């Protein structure tokens, strides 16, 4: 039995940890609804990371572990953003886990 979340009147299947069941279902509204459930309001800074993760997945076919994300963000978006303090300030439940969920990706590979 899987759960669903409702985005713009449409149902999206999610797994028991809240990750989207089908990556290809994702629409930006999914991130907004998931964020609201976590009492977060998405800013442009959040979207930079979400979009970055989707691009990373597109290229490498995996959701990166947190320290890999941190390193890759630093390389792509600048050193001041490539540190865990900044990323945790945006995604308090864990930058890789929470941001990957918002981005519709599976749980990151290498998260322990």
């Amino acid at each position, binding site marked *: 039995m899987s759960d669903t979340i409702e985005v713009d009147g449409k149902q999206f299947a999610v797994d028991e940890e809240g990750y989207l069941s089908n990556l290809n279902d994702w629409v930006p509204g999914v991130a907004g609804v998931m964020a609201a459930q976590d009492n977060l309001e998405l800013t442009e800074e959040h979207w930079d990371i979400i979009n970055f993760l989707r691009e990373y997945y597109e290229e490498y*076919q995996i959701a990166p572990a947190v320290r890999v994300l941190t390193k890759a963000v630093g*390389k792509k978006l600048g050193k001041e953003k490539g540190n865990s303090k900044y990323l945790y300030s945006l995604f308090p439940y864990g930058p890789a886990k929470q941001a990957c969920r918002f981005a519709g990706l599976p749980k990151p*590979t290498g998260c322990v």
Partner: protein
Amino acid sequence: MSEIVKKFMYLNRKAPYGTIYAWEALEVVLIGAAFDQDVSVMFLDDGVYQLTKGQDTKGIGMKNFSPTFRTLGDYEVKKVYVDRASLEARGLTQEDLVAIAWEDMETEEEVDNIVEVIDSARVSALMNESDVVFSF
């Protein structure tokens, strides 16, 4: 986290897609990378087929995990070896394989391709030096 750094070798001897071993091995390597050990990944026998360039799985409806090998550098895996004799028996050269880049964020030291084709004696030596060998 363990204080003693052990030498872990992941030994890959299976072709991709025909069985699940190759993908499972890659996931274990990426997960294991979080433990800060001395990791090397060895491709031997049909395992060398995992690294061929230009894999396109649309026609067989399976996930193409070939691009994921290129993240090994991001996961701080710096030692990737391929047995030369296995390549030669299959009519392959390093030209047929993907390149995996590595970069140290602090020192900005860059290596364009960490994939190293080595002879069998070196393969044996690396196996003998390892504390643990995980076989797939």
